[in-house]
């Protein structure tokens, strides 16, 4: 087995490009889809008057998570809203604001809250500064107090709530990272496992059979190599996001790395099953994208499964490995699951892996390519 692994490693080092490209593409997809502001609601705004306070309010608003504010003239703003191109528009004045709406939706009240809070924060800070000034303390020093209080508070407050079955927490960065990583690694693993088909067609497999090497060593050598490559790819991507782009893994980075093991094993087994079923490498190359993309769509890699309402699609998702991979990874991070809760998706993945591996090898052994 060591000999096969060593040869595979050499072959990989001669041609690492598929691995490098897949890793790069995955990092790019995960990065850009999580950084984009596609989920923010665009709100045009116009400022009446010019003062330091107005600049502060605008800065505060630009930090809002739900909205993307776009500055324009009042005439443009009215035209946008009246023609229905934007649901709402915002006119900011020194002491007050006005919201223009084309239709009354839930956005309006949320916008009102966000803008109202920005005004009250500004007024509060202004009042403190004025009081400090009357005591002879410069405003720069007061600003420093505010900054210090925000960055290093005396008390830290942690909010917690009981979650019902119907609630779900959405973290776009982790959703994109987990989804695209679990999706792209299917290609890396599958195309490595499929080298067994090439070796069968080229006679190399028969040559190894005729040596004292045992069958299990032949399979193990090939499959362990695919497992290692798949795992290293995922770990590499997660390390990039953890240590370079500083994505929050909710303090469970090590658990996430451990949870990748059953998922990668299942995908190796799935690839073995497909390799056992198809007859030619060309068939394999045609089947893999179909399987990978449909599994990713149904298994919640591209969007959270919680937004899917179709009972049929949700039913199919129960037999897709990505579903349980996503569930385990999100469970360990966003949902803060404990070991017991994580055992369910992990067990399902291992069961699927064992079944698919057994059936795949059986098919492979029945057929002499």
């Amino acid at each position, binding site marked *: 087995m060591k*000999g*096969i692994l*060593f*040869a595979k490693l*050499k*072959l990989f080092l*001669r*041609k690492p490009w598929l691995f490098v490209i897949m890793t790069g593409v995955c990092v790019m997809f995960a990065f850009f889809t999580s950084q984009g502001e596609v989920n923010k609601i665009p709100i045009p705004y116009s400022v009446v008057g010019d003062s330091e306070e107005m600049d502060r309010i605008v800065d505060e608003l630009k930090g809002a998570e739900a909205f993307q504010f776009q500055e324009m003239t009042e005439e443009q703003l009215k035209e946008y809203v009246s023609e229905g191109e934007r649901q709402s528009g915002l006119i900011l004045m020194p002491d007050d604001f006005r919201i223009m709406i084309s239709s009354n939706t839930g956005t309006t009240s949320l916008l009102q809250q966000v803008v109202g809070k920005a005004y009250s924060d500004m007024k509060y800070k202004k009042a403190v500064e004025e009081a400090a000034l009357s005591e002879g303390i410069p405003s720069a020093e007061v600003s420093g107090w505010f900054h210090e209080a925000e960055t290093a508070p005396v008390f830290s407050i942690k909010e917690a709530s009981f979650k019902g079955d119907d609630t779900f927490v959405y973290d776009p960065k982790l959703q994109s990272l987990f989804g695209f990583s679990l999706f792209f690694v299917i290609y890396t693993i599958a195309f490595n496992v499929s080298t067994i088909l090439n070796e069968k*067609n*080229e*006679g*190399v497999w*028969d*040559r*190894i*059979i*005729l*040596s*004292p*090497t045992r069958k299990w060593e032949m399979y193990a050598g090939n499959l362990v190599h695919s497992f290692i490559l798949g795992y290293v790819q995922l770990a590499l991507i997660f390390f990039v996001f953890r240590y370079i782009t500083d994505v929050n893994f909710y303090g469970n980075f090590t658990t996430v790395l451990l949870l990748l093991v059953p998922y990668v094993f299942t995908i190796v087994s799935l690839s073995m099953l497909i390799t056992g079923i198809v007859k030619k490498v060309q068939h394999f190359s045609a089947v893999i994208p179909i399987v990978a993309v449909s599994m990713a769509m149904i298994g919640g890699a591209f969007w959270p499964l919680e937004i899917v309402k179709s009972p049929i699609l949700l039913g199919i998702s129960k037999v897709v490995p990505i579903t349980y991979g996503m569930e385990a990874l999100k469970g360990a991070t966003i949902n803060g699951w404990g070991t017991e809760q994580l055992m369910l998706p992990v067990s399902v993945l291992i069961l699927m892996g064992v079944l698919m591996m057994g059936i795949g090898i059986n098919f492979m052994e029945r057929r*002499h390519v």
Partner: protein
Amino acid sequence: MLEVVSLSKDFKKHKAVEGVNIFLEKGETVGLLGPNGAGKSTIISMISSLISPSEGDVRLHNDSILKHPQMLRKVLGVVPQEIALYNDLTARENLEFFGKIHRLRGKALKDKIADILDQIGLKERQNDVVKTFSGGMKRRLNIGVALLHDPEILIMDEPTVGIDPQSRNYILEQVKRLNREKNMTILYTSHYMEEVEFLCDRIYIMDKGHIIASGTKDEIKSILSAESTILIKLERSSDAFVDRLKEIAYLKTVTSQDKEVTVVVPKEVHPFNQIFQIADETGATIVTIDRKTATLEDVFLHLTGRALRD
């Protein structure tokens, strides 16, 4: 030494091999000839224990290898028809890999690789990646890999397909040397009759899954010893000439292809005068006419027919 007894193989309803008997004595080189689809590769796969037969047995020193395939695999080297090598590894790396899976290690492996590289003439190119090799070099390395564990029996499935005459000659000389110096028993399949004539002591000819002739080269050729072949080359093709020849009762077969006409006659018959007369009457101009004794190829074509195969 190695005995194939009533071997048959069915693939669903298709009988690829039926009731084949072959034996190989120690130190013999035996040829297995047959057109495409005759069942040669299926027989080789069954002898190598890669596929199991539907019926029959393969015995090594009277022990069935169907029950103990490992026994045969220790002493068997197979040179497959395909180039069964890792194209992205060097010649040395390929030999190292296949040597290791044959449990060769350390100095023994190193010495063996040096010996094989010398035998196959690839010492200078040992560190080059196989995909940069010519067809002949790949074929030589393909043979080298099969020799790593010093097999007693070597099965070669069309080892010279698609290579230049120099490489082909080199391979044939090496096979001859292996047989002569190492007393290796060789089963050799090929489409090239001259290769089989050059290398083999005995020959099996098979077609449609059956052995249709077997024996020494002379025994095989004697199948056509009662007949001789007359080759006639015309200036231009003439159907009238061929039709008139076919009317002559003592000419056994008359076949034509373009400007060439082949006539098989009993050895004692001398029909040259009559052939010239018919040519004169039909207006055909004979460029050359040649009478020859049967070659292995004649026997092969006589037994398997001249019709094209799929």
